[in-house]
């Protein structure tokens, strides 16, 4: 199979950007597109077979506040079980929040129905982590990419659909002649490109990228990251980039939010979070990332966390992180710290927030 080219057909790019919804036809860069206010999602824990009783709740997402502006990439990092994928499901309206709200262009998602909801679902698309299980093996690539148009028929007139599909495949670096192939004929990186083309087909404003490169080999990961960056520039897309790989998140994000046990513990520009992390959890997380440069080995501030993440069904009182924190004092058990700036230039949810450089700066 010929390799996907990094370059883009000029014809395809012009045809796509002329479509309604291109960057120029949209609002100004930097305006607030999406806002999460105290977003919560609790899943009930039940017991019993015939008579189900609710015996508790898993607080998967518990009070998340975040803003996404047009044209920017917000990275959401955290370890497994911290609730980051639940956030992505809430955003694409696959799950209904238990509390709080999602405001899209100033309107509450919960109040949307009918046409407004349909429009929202078109404008907020998602790319999944696993390019193997997220594509229907019985559909051709062309059908997968074009499927959204059967619901949102106004975007692509029926007779143009094949041409549009081929343009999209070309834009994501796949051979346009592959429209009739099936997903199993593609490698992991190529499948992820198919997923990206499928999301692009509906001319979204926002793409929620849920671990889009985690399943890929490192050499292929870079191809997909570059593609996402190019598409953002061309179409003025906004990304919520969810990942556990701190290096990739730093590379791609304008702003970064760190999540622990259902809530955000620190937020700031990539520079602020990575060079002056102020929440102990962020510091521990950054200090765990292995460095690639031999001359920086051993210069890192080593913080080894003890124990495991507590269960989200029974989170600690007060600060969620206090059970593993070396700074914890009495106040941490009684009062949950707010996510505010305590003099570090960016907000951190810690009573004793203090900037600490953990990752050595590469000077050469």
């Amino acid at each position, binding site marked *: 199979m010929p*390799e996907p080219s990094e370059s883009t057909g000029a014809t395809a790019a012009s045809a796509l950007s002329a479509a309604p919804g291109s960057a120029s036809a949209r609002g100004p860069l930097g305006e607030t597109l999406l806002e999460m206010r105290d977003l919560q999602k609790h899943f009930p824990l039940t017991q019993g077979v015939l008579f189900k009783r609710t015996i508790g709740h898993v607080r998967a997402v518990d009070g998340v506040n975040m803003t996404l502006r047009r044209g920017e990439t917000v990275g959401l990092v955290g370890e497994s079980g911290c609730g980051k994928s639940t956030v992505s499901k809430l955003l694409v309206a696959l799950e209904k929040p238990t509390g709080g709200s999602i405001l899209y262009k100033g309107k509450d998602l919960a109040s949307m129905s009918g046409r407004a909801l349909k429009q929202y679902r078109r404008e907020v698309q998602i790319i999944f982590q696993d390019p193997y299980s997220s594509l229907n093996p019985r559909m051709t690539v062309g059908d997968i990419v074009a499927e959204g148009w059967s619901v949102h028929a106004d975007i692509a007139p029926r007779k143009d659909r094949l041409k549009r599909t081929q343009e999209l495949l070309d834009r994501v670096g796949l051979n346009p002649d592959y429209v009739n192939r099936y997903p199993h004929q593609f*490698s992991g990186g190529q499948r992820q490109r198919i997923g990206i083309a499928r999301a692009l087909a509906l001319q979204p404003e926002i793409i929620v990228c849920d671990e889009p490169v985690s399943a890929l080999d490192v050499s292929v990961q870079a*191809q997909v990251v570059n593609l996402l960056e190019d598409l953002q520039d061309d179409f003025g897309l906004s990304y919520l980039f969810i990942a556990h790989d*701190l290096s990739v998140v*730093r590379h791609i994000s304008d702003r970064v939010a760190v999540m622990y046990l259902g809530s955000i513990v620190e937020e700031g520009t990539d520079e602020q979070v990575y060079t002056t992390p102020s929440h102990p959890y962020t510091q521990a997380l950054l*200090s765990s*990332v292995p460095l690639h440069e031999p001359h920086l080995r051993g210069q890192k501030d080593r913080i*080894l966390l003890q124990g*495991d993440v507590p269960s989200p069904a029974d989170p600690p009182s007060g600060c969620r992180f206090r059970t593993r924190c070396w700074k914890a004092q009495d106040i941490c058990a009684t009062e949950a710290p707010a996510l505010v700036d305590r003099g570090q230039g960016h907000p951190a949810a810690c009573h004793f927030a203090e900037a600490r450089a953990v990752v050595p700066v590469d000077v050469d």
Partner: protein
Amino acid sequence: MTQFQTEPSPRVAAAGAPLLEVDDLHVEFQQRSGVVHAVNGISYSLAAGETLAILGESGSGKSVSAQAIMGILDVPPAVVTGAIRFEGRDMLTMSEEDQRQIRGPGISMIFQDALSSLNPVYSVGWQIGEMFRVHQGVSRKDAKAKAIELMDRVRIPAAAKRVDDYPHQFSGGMRQRVMIAMAIALDPRILIADEPTTALDVTVQAQVMDLLKDLQRETGMGLILITHDLGVVNEVADEVAVMYAGRIVERGTVDDVFTDAGHPYTEGLMNSVPQVESKGGRLQPIAGQPPNLAAIPSGCPFHPRCARRRLGAEAAPGQECSVDVPPLRLIAPGREAACHYSEEVLGARAV
């Protein structure tokens, strides 16, 4: 220092002699659709107390070569040729019973996916104790006591209480510790860790890698670390062998290889990975996909993806990348690379 050998030569058993020598190892799988060449002639050696990282992407043959060393490949369909010498004795020609004597006390292995490597219907204590019951014939009671001791050693909290728990009751990091406990139970001379932390979160990864290094310091075992993570290699290993399409394409000390790559594939890997210590500019990916092992490209297997390849008139005689297979050769003191034009790659990273 790990000593690599290019030529198979008889070695004198002396202090510092390698524990393990892999010599021109080939692994093929016979399939209906053809022969899959998973490992194509790799050689390396490992001495006590050393850490050798084998770095490669999926399909590079790094795991299959380790499975061949452990003797856990199904033969057939696998065909293993070459020599794997443990303390001078070739494991490929010895009897199954002799091999079994080496597995455990000689060489042991931990795997990426601890949940599927553990038996869900036996308690972890029983599974750890099995090593002692089977290999040393100790009683159940003593085996359990030893299991608790081991769980303490791999820092599983409240070991005495948790010894009767089942694998699903442990977190991912704790399960990997159980695997490590089983692997070190018989004080192996060599531990092969196949992507031991890939399924784990970074904070847990740091804990597990620390534990492995501590255990190595305590016991002086040799460690073969198989991974695709450049950062883990840099922080843990002394020596690194980079694999591509079943071959070792570059090897040397981690400091040398990571500071200044000598093979275009290694160079490409370094350039394509973002780093946590800086935002960095645009990534420079390696074009294309890793090759299909049933149809490895002619000449240098990396040449279709290589930005430095030389074809036709550009190439020096006998060094055309699409025709001539580059041998693994000495490119600098203590370093080898399998590229006709390594000298051009060396020094290229100083940007």
